[in-house]
């Protein structure tokens, strides 16, 4: 199940699903309570520079795909919002949760404080990721759409809701300088807004996203134990290192693996090593090809299959269950930065298991040259406003006030509360560092503003320099998506199905259930099932754009 979200294809899916969601028939405009889709011209919302945090960056970005790296927390937190966004009453939200939902409001001091700060009552429907699609479908079918709805760009149900008018068109409300009424909403750059447009209209409030998210970690203690090379110069040397590790059966009382899971981060990293490039990419003739049609992609699969064959993988790597131990007790652990240095992850791993050492690996291309990293979309984690609620302009203003409050930038007192809770209740200030003591569940409505900087936890300080070096190098070797701004209706309607079959086939080839020649047959079927149609639509969209 977890593989369904593998980013390698869905990243591209998100690019255009949202954009094409409105390309279908708009018979629903005004139907079912949906507001009419606006057609009036509008300007991209004006960018309002957010107030910077009271902390200097430890490393300043020098590439467009790199972001400043901060270590620790601001010395002080500024007040970013005056008054309360609501004047009593209630606001309902539909929010996907990544962790445990909170207890009832009566037993949750964070929720009570949030209500007080908002000046009303926030009534959140918490939805686990696995139930997002069916829960949203039943919510939309009920006709009672909450005021704020978390929109998963990869969910066809969410996109159907957008297409059919369940959510308000905010284009005119936020057009140009209008957005400055909500300074925190304005703290989004033009590319973030443009990336999140749905058929050319603003239907969601986006959150900025880091251009690059996954960075490979290496278990240096085990590399040392096997006498391996901690700086493999190419794919063969990396394979050799991992194969050496495969002979080690356990460390610190737990089974050791070369690679713990076959998941998004691993696929991303190996594709980068083989310079696979974007999901849909322009070939030499100016037309689109999908990465699975390329020899580079085929070679990346062959590398993974070779690793599997050599016993590098955890035998249960396809089950989606992370093996016990720090980072799955794996030697090669491509991970999201938020799980390693963004929080206490890497520090905790070293603290809790004596003798382990982790470091970032500067990955080389398969032939010793550069890698090619595909950048993320500039936006993610979008929030939409119910079209029914937005019919009342005063009500819409209040709803946007709430989003403005929740978008408070990093460094503000509001963001500190939103992310960490109440001082004394959920955290304490120790040596100038906000130290969680009883972390609350904070996933009421997650939306962010400002530039998506890498704000490393203070405990991650020893790894900051290594992280910055690796991230900067990856940024230099990164490319934006070739399909940015282009649309494919077929991708919206059949993308999930095509992606599921691709993931299944990847699993089969890597684990040895299918051969590479089977994969060639699969590619033809995949193209017949909708891939060709998507290619045509992209080509046409590109020609139309000129």
């Amino acid at each position, binding site marked *: 199940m977890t593989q369904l979200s593998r980013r390698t294809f869905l990243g591209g899916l998100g690019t255009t699903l949202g954009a094409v969601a409105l390309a279908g028939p708009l018979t629903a405009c005004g139907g079912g309570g949906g507001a009419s889709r606006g057609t009036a011209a509008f300007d991209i919302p004006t960018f309002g520079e957010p107030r910077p945090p009271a902390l200097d960056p430890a490393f300043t970005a020098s590439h467009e795909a790199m972001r400043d790296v901060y270590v620790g927390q601001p010395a002080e937190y500024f007040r970013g919002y005056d008054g309360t966004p609501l004047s009593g009453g209630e606001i309902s939200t539909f929010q996907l949760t990544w962790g445990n939902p909170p207890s009832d409001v009566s037993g949750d001091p964070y929720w009570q404080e949030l209500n007080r700060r908002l000046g009303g009552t926030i009534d959140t429907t918490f939805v686990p990721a696995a139930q997002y699609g069916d829960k949203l479908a039943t919510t939309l*079918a009920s006709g009672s759409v909450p005021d704020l709805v978390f929109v998963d760009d990869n969910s066809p149900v969410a996109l159907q809701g957008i297409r059919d008018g369940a959510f308000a068109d905010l284009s005119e409300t936020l057009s140009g300088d209008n957005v400055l009424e909500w300074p925190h909403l304005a703290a989004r750059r033009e590319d973030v807004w443009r990336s999140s447009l749905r058929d050319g209209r603003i239907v969601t409030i986006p959150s900025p996203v880091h251009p690059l998210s996954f960075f490979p970690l290496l278990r240096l203690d085990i590399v040392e134990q096997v006498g391996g090379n901690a700086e493999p110069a190419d794919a063969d040397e990396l394979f050799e290192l991992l194969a050496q590790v495969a002979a080690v059966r356990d460390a610190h009382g737990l089974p050791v693996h070369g690679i713990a899971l076959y998941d998004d981060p691993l696929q991303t990293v190996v594709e980068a090593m083989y310079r696979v490039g974007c999901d849909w990419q322009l070939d030499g003739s100016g037309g689109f090809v999908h990465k699975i049609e390329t020899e580079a992609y085929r070679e990346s699969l062959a590398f993974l299959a070779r690793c599997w064959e050599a016993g590098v993988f955890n*035998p249960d790597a396809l089950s989606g269950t992370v093996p016990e131990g720090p980072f799955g007790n794996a030697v090669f652990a491509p991970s999201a930065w938020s799980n390693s240095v963004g929080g206490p992850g890497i520090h905790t791993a070293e603290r809790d298991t004596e003798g382990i050492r982790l470091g970032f690996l500067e990955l080389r291309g398969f032939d010793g040259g550069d890698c090619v990293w595909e950048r993320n979309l500039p936006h993610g984690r979008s929030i939409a406003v119910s079209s029914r609620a937005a019919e009342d302009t005063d009500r819409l203003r209040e709803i946007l006030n709430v989003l403005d409050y929740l978008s408070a930038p990093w460094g503000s007192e509001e963001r500190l509360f939103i992310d960490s809770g109440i001082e004394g209740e959920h955290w304490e200030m120790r040596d100038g560092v906000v130290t969680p003591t009883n972390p609350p569940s904070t996933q009421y409505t997650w939306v962010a503003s400002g530039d998506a900087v890498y704000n490393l936890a203070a405990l991650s300080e020893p790894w900051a320099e290594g992280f910055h070096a690796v991230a900067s190098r990856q940024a230099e070797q990164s490319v934006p998506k070739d399909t940015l701004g282009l649309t494919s209706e077929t991708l919206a309607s059949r993308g999930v199905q095509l992606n599921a079959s691709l993931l299944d086939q990847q699993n089969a080839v890597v684990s040895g259930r299918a051969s590479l020649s089977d994969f060639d047959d699969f590619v033809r079927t995949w193209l017949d099932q909708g891939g060709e149609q998507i290619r045509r639509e992209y080509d046409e969209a590109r020609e139309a754009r000129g």
Partner: protein
Amino acid sequence: MTTRQRTVPAAPGTSEEEAPAAPPVEVRGTSLWTRIKRERVAYTFIVPGLAFFVLFVYVPLLGNVVAFMDFSPFLGLEDSPWVGFDNFRALLDDPELRDALVNTLTISLLLVVFAFPAPLALALLLNSLLSDRVKRIVQTVVYLPHFLSWVIVISLCQQLLGGNGFVSTLVQDLGGEPFNAMTDPDTFYALVVSQSIWKDVGWGTIIFFAAIAAVPRDRYEAAAVDGANSWRRTWHITLPALLPVTTLLLILQIGNVLTVGFEQLLLQQPAVGADAAQVLDTFVYYRGVAGGQWGVSAAAGLLKGVIATVLIVSANRVAKRLGGSGIF
């Protein structure tokens, strides 16, 4: 409407020969309404069950119209456009449907052959135990897995039979080659059937125990007096007594032949692959809930329902032709 005569059953604990002669109740020519009025108290007990089925089974059946629409949850049935048989055409053109159908039928067949008779065999085995205490303990133990969710059952299998599982680790410690039963498509059907038997064999014995308990003990005593050994008593008394309920269960099982463990298969599909683990129910899930193709999904469900109905009616007829009573 039945035209057979109905007789009052014998009192519990008495054989039919000993029962007092009760006057037969004449139902021929009596209208349903008259019978409802006459036996209104008895019919009242039907009301909650009937209401449940009407509200939660028959009314939702109307939702099958989605199979003929380009359905969108927000637009609902009123505003979603009609598309005729497009969804059925898309369904039949889907190459994954064939694999899903083959897997479903194969697993169903294996379940009928191996899992269906397992509770019967276990019930007979337990019935042969002389100690009631031992029988009750064994019954309790074999019922328990039924109450475990599939998530737990699959996790247990993973811990036991996975690549890092107990068995593989033991084999490696003994110098053997590692193996992973959870990712091997060649043995996946056997794994699925084994899991189903382990989880539900105990629960399935309940109905057979009830049927065995209904067999008058004097029949066994009479057979024993006539010199029948244990096997003969089982063959000539117990099994015929179980035949009606076995027929009923088999007909119901055949009606469910296109429905095999959704959660069980969904949880194991990523590891073993769709070629082996895609069944109709997971196909419907991936197309509908995950993929938003509600119409195609509903078309698959509707088609499945129609086929199941045909199978149940056919199985019922066959059962009657073979001398059984069928279920309707």
